[in-house]
C-alpha cells in the first residue's frame, strides 16, 4: 500500500485481478437456465452425499447387515428384511441405492481433493518455472519429465505396501502422479503471457515477483489449467476406480463409485444390468454438473470476458 498523503481517505492501487467482479459472478451464474439447473443438481448431490446415512435405506459398509441371499436382485424387489431395493442389489447383497450414495461420497472426496492438490502444486511449479526461468526452470521441468514417466500403478502399489491401505493413500498416489501435467500446461501458458506488456508494466512498477506471479500472471493463465482440471476430476475418479479395481485402492467392503462401476463391469454381459448401469449414470450426472457449473465459474473468473 503506497503511503497516502491523506490518511482520512485511502485510495489503493489495485492489481488487475482484484477488480470488483465477484458480485457479478453470482449474478451470471443465476442467469442461464442450464447453469441454474446444474447448480441445483450439484447442490442436491452435495447434500445427498454429506447426509448419506440419513437418506440411504441401508448401511452397505456394515457386513452384518448384508446377506448373500439378497444378491443380484432386480430393481424394486424386496430384500429378506422387507425393505425394497429400488435400484436392485449387487452380488454381495448391497442395496445399489445405498451403495451409490455412500460411494459418491468417497469418489467425490477423492476426485476433488486429488485435483485441487495437484492443481495447486503443479500450477505453482509451472508458474515459477516459467516466470523465473533459467536453472530453476530446467530443474523443475526435468523433475516433471521424471514424474510423467512413472507408472501410477507402481506408485500406488508402493504406497500400499509401505503406508498401508486407505483413501488418503489413494489421494496421495493420484496427486503424486498427476501434478506434472498441470505444471506443464501452466508453464506453456505462462511462457506466452510473461512476454506481454502488463507483466512488464507490473515489474516496472516495482511489484515483487511473487505478487506478479500470483495476481497478474496467474489469473490470465488459469484458462487452460481450469479446463484441464475440470476434466481431470472425472479422470481422477476413474483412476481411483482402476486402482481400487486392481486392489490397491479403497477397501472392497467400502466401495467408492468407481469401484462399484468396476465391479459392475463383470456383469455387463450377464443381464444384471443394474449393477453397472446405475453407478454409471450417477457418475455421469456428477461429472456433468461439475463441468457445467465449473465452466460458467471459469468464464466468470476470466478477466478477458467481454
Amino acid at each position: 500500500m503506497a503511503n497516502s498523503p491523506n490518511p482520512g481517505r485511502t485510495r489503493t492501487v489495485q492489481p488487475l485481478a482484484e477488480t470488483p467482479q465477484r458480485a457479478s459472478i453470482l449474478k451470471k451464474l443465476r442467469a442461464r437456465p442450464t447453469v441454474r439447473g446444474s447448480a441445483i443438481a450439484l447442490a442436491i448431490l452435495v447434500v445427498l452425499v454429506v447426509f448419506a446415512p440419513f437418506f440411504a435405506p441401508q448401511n452397505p459398509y456394515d457386513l452384518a447387515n448384508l446377506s448373500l441371499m439378497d444378491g443380484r436382485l432386480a430393481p424394486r424387489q424386496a430384500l429378506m428384511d422387507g425393505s425394497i431395493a429400488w435400484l436392485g442389489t449387487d452380488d454381495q447383497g448391497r442395496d445399489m441405492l445405498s451403495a451409490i450414495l455412500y460411494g459418491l461420497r468417497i469418489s467425490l472426496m477423492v476426485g476433488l481433493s486429488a485435483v485441487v492438490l495437484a492443481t495447486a502444486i503443479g500450477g505453482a511449479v509451472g508458474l515459477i518455472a516459467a516466470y523465473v526461468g533459467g536453472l530453476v526452470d530446467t530443474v523443475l521441468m526435468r523433475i516433471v519429465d521424471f514424474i510423467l514417466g512413472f507408472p501410477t500403478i507402481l506408485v500406488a502399489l508402493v504406497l500400499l505396501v509401505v503406508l498401508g491401505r486407505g483413501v488418503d493413500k489413494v489421494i496421495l498416489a493420484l496427486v503424486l502422479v498427476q501434478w506434472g501435467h498441470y505444471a506443464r500446461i501452466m508453464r506453456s501458458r505462462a511462457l506466452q503471457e510473461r512476454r506481454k506488456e502488463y507483466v512488464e508494466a507490473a515489474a516496472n512498477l516495482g511489484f515483487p515477483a511473487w505478487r506478479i506471479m500470483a495476481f497478474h500472471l496467474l489469473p490470465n493463465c488459469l484458462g487452460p489449467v481450469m479446463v484441464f482440471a475440470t476434466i481431470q476430476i472425472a479422470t481422477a475418479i476413474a483412476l481411483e476406480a482402476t486402482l481400487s479395481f486392481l486392489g490397491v485402492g479403497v477397501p472392497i467392503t467400502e466401495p467408492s463409485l468407481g469401484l462399484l462401476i468396476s465391479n459392475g463391469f463383470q456383469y455387463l454381459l450377464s443381464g444384471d444390468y443394474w449393477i453397472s448401469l446405475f453407478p454409471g449414470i450417477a457418475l455421469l450426472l456428477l461429472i456433468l454438473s461439475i463441468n457445467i457449473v465449473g465452466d460458467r465459474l471459469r468464464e466468470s473468473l476470466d478477466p478477458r470476458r467481454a
Partner: protein
Amino acid sequence: MALFILRRLIQSLFVLLAVSVVVFFAVYAVGDPIELLVSPEASQAAREAMIARLGLDLPVWQQYTGFLWRALHGDLGTSFVHGIPAVELIVQRIPATFELVFVAIMLTCVIGIPLGLVAGLYRDDYLGRGIMSTSVLGFSLPNFWQGMMLILLFAVWLGWLPATGRGDTVTVLGVRLSILTANGWSHLIMPAINLALANIALVLRLTASGVVEARSQDYVKFARAKGVKPGRIVRRHILRNILIPVVTVIGMEFGSLIAYSTITETVFAWPGMGKLLIDSVYQLDRPVVVAYVMLVTLIFVVINLVVDILYAALDPRVQLVTPAQ
C-alpha cells in the same frame, strides 16, 4: 538450437538415472518375486539356486550397481518370468502400441481441433453449446465401459468389426505393422476410437476455450475492423495463438497413451506395451518394469523436447531458453 538440444539430452540422462533408481527400489519394496515364481514343490536347494541365479541373494544396493554396470553395456536385464532379455520383450510390443496411439492421435487432431474451433466460434449458438455438452460424455465414462459398449455394438450386434486382437501384419524393415493391411485397420479402428474419445473431448474443449479467449483480444478486433475475411482471421490469427496449450496437451497425451493404454489393450486384447507393464508389475518382474519405465521416460523426454521446439516455432514471444530474471 543444437546446443539447446544437446543440453536437454544431457539433462535427460540424469533423469533416466534417477528414474532407474527409484523404480528399482520401488519394485523391490513391493515384495519378493521368488514367492511368485518358485513352486512349493521345489526343494530348498532348487529354491536357493534360483535365488542366486536371479541375483536376489545380494544386498539390494549391490543388485542395483550390478544392474547399472550391465546397463552401461547395453544389457537392461533378463525377465524373471519370460527368460528373455527385457528390452527384447518390450521392443516386440512397441509397433503394436505405436500404431494404436498414432491412429488415436490422428483422430484427436482431425476431430477435436475442428470441432473445438466450431464450438468456440459459435459459442452462443445451439451448435456450439451442443458440441461442448456432448464432449462431456467423452471423458465421463470409464474407459473399459466405453470399450465394452463399442465391442457389444459393432462386433456382437452388428458384426461389422472383429471383437479383439490385432489384424494381419506386413513386415516393413523388420517391423511388423498391421496399419498397412485392410484387415489390420478393421482390428485397429475400435481400440483407437476408444483411446481417442477422452482426448478428443479434451482437445475440443481446450481449442474452444482458446478460441473464445483469442476472439476477445485486441488483434482480432483490429483485424475484423480492418475487414479481413473471417476465415482468414481464424486461420492466420486465432489458430496459431491457441495451438500452444493444445500442442502441449497432445504431446503429453501421446506419452500417456503410449505408456498407459493398458485398459484399452486389456479390453481389446491388443498386444501392446501397456499390458506388458501391468503384468510385469504384478509378477514383480523387476527387470522388465525398470527397462520399461526407463524407455517410457525417454519417450516423454523426446516428446517434451519436440513440443518445446514447436512452442518456439508457433509463438515468437516464447524463448526456448528462458533467461533467469
